[in-house]
């Protein structure tokens, strides 16, 4: 049983106009793992993420960090946000500086680090996302994918223990997605806990360790990615579909691999398994 670093208990939140965005939501984020929050448009994913770093305050319920309920005073919030970083979906909502370098330096400076330390953090964050060559570019001359990476670097430079990303792959081309996932994988290997929201079941299936399915302002179910996504009923209830790879593997009869290997989680794995079957002559 891995330690729970961040948790939500019975969150309730309403936007003005009486729409219940969160309605008794429970969530557990295990330390050092990749958690996908999966849900259709308008199911409350972003609202939930805004609760996880204290931007929104629930009407009822609480958020726990290392098992302790967090406070909403200035000091408590600032300590909270030092540990839990949030990257918004729209990078233009986050980038305010004229140049990439300036923007990435903003977070670490707010953490009260000395100038040298800030410069080191900025370089390292740009390096991780492979955008060092963009450092001196004006923010307004970047492509969408570049802006997205700069926005992530700006939060990364603060070295959060938990990195929360709202729809990190939305609007990126396939190469952009691959680069982003590679950078995030590097972070996870370094021990960062990752939480990301998405409506892309294939992304959740291929990449997440754990999945939480959101619907009607609640977490309908949460668990290990494979087990959670293997149940079509649950997915349909949340207006989602079965991951393509899983559906194909099941239809082709290769969902259960040799030994105790589970279903293939990448295109390459599925192809390898199919070729293996042809090779066996079975």
């Amino acid at each position, binding site marked *: 049983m891995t330690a729970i670093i961040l948790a939500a208990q019975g969150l309730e939140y309403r936007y003005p106009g009486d729409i219940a965005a969160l309605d008794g939501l429970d969530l557990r984020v295990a330390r050092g793992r990749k958690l996908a929050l999966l849900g259709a448009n308008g199911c409350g994913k972003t609202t939930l993420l*805004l609760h996880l770093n204290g*931007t929104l305050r629930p009407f009822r319920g609480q958020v726990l960090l290392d098992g302790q309920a967090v406070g909403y005073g200035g000091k408590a919030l600032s300590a909270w946000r030092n540990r839990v970083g949030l990257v918004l979906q729209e990078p233009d909502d986050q980038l305010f500086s004229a140049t990439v370098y*300036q*923007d990435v330096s*903003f977070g670490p400076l*707010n953490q009260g680090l000395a100038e040298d330390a*800030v410069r080191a953090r900025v370089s390292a964050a740009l390096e991780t996302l492979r955008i060092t060559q963009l450092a001196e*570019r004006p923010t307004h*001359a970047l492509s969408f994918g570049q802006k997205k990476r700069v926005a992530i670097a700006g939060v990364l430079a603060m070295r959060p223990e938990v990195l929360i990303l709202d729809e990190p792959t939305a609007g990126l081309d396939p190469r952009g997605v691959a680069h982003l996932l590679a950078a995030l994988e590097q972070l996870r290997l370094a021990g960062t806990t990752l939480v990301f929201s998405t409506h892309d079941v294939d992304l959740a299936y291929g990449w997440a360790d754990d999945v939480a399915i959101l619907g009607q302002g609640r977490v309908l179910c949460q668990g290990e990615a494979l087990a959670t996504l293997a149940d079509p009923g649950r997915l349909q209830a949340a207006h989602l579909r079965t991951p393509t790879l899983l559906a194909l593997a099941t239809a082709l009869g290769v969902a259960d691999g040799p030994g105790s290997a589970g279903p293939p989680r990448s295109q390459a794995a599925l192809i390898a398994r199919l070729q293996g079957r042809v090779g066996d002559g079975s």
Partner: protein
Amino acid sequence: MRAIDRHAWTNRWRRHHPGERLLLAGGGLLLALTLPPLTAGPLLCLLMGGATVLGAGVPARAFLAVMALPAGFLLVSAPFLAVSLDLSDGVHLAVSPAGAWLALAVTLRSLGALSCLAFLALTTPVAELVPWLRRVGVPAPVVEIALLIYRLIFIFMERALAGQQAQAARQGYSTRRRSLRSLGLLIATLFQRAMERARRLEVGLAARGYVGELRVLTPERPLSRSRLAATLGVLLAVALGSVLLDRGLA
């Protein structure tokens, strides 16, 4: 404006310390205001044009385009400076040699000063100058607002352009009447969007520990002594040249 900004970010001198360019432009401005204008004006135009085009590698067309608009105003207003109006004994309009000299002097002096500003605008992004403003004592809130406006202008222009294109694609500008209506709708929408965006930007900044101060670091750029010395030398040469030439002309 976008063209000026693009050159400012991409020219050859972009990675030099902005103070070096500020010295050249500021020094030139000082010379334009103090030296005999008949010679200093043209010399400064040549120097700034040369620095922009040959030094920083900005196309000559861009430099001339930036100079053209204010120069046009100057040329239009110069004739009026040459004319003198005498009301002591009825209304007398006269063009005097002294008036013509004055008009020429003012025009050349202004052109010289303008060339310095054109050089600075085309080689140095506003965002590079703003942190410097803070160092010379402009209050932090003013500097922060200037930086935010600089950033948001581009987002705003992008949105406005996209909105206008979307309206045009649906025949929103096919008649004058519709154009007026579409433009009104666009402005109303942009205002609302700007408010929403401001709120979301606040969330984004708060997530990164914003508590009321927008502090950022810029990459370190060493001041080059040799370039500073060269700049001073060139300015001195212009000063001497213009004084000597002026004596020669007189």
